[in-house]
């Protein structure tokens, strides 16, 4: 079963999202939470990396954390899915393991 990766730091301040993207396998799930949700925005300096990731990985963002920071579905890269807290729980249950990139 695939791994669930969670990332909670802004990609503009830390390297953890980039590190996660290079060390996660095809078919794994990457969930952006807390300050990492801004990595899902369109037109950023990390957008190319996220666009590449959605081609072969399941990239998700926690909707409540996205809304908290002032953004919605219209602001994020096509192919990134929005999940709610229940969806977060489902992802944890569906994956064999969780790796937290801090």
């Amino acid at each position, binding site marked *: 079963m695939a791994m669930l990766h969670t990332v909670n730091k802004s990609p503009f*301040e830390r390297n953890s999202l980039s590190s996660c993207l290079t060390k996660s396998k095809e078919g794994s799930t990457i969930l952006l939470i*807390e300050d990492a949700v801004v990595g899902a925005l369109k037109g*950023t300096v990390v957008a190319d990396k996220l666009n590449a990731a959605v081609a072969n990985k399941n990239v998700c963002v926690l909707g409540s954390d996205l*809304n908290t920071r002032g*953004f919605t579905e219209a602001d994020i890269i096509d192919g990134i899915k929005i999940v*709610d807290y229940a969806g977060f729980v489902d992802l944890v249950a569906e994956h064999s393991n969780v790796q937290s990139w801090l």
Partner: protein
Amino acid sequence: MSEGIKKFMFVNTKAPYGTVYALESLEVVLISAAFDQSVSLVFCDDGIFQIANNQNTEASGMKNFSPAYKALGDYDINKIYVETESLEERGLTLDNIMALTYEDEDDDWAEKSSIIPITRAELADLMDEQDVVISS
């Protein structure tokens, strides 16, 4: 500038909510306004997210403190610098930033924007002119 008044600049570089830096800085800014100093604010790097439009904490249950920035004008804090390169790097424009305003007592209390776009190079010069710079 009159005797005893210093130029204070608060430089906000962190995203809100994930850490407590943004809220703590805002509280210090509001306190400093009570001491009749010359206060300006800078939002750069992830700090620009602090004054992003449409913050909605309903689903996360966190305290939305973004409306408090709109009170800065009433505290005579009306120089709010936003670094343009930081916006561009994050796929944002000034349209994504809250409309922070003040009423100009020298111009019949006309409502004016407090937001001043500034480049990284200009910001370096501006910081150099300050008496006190507090960064968070």
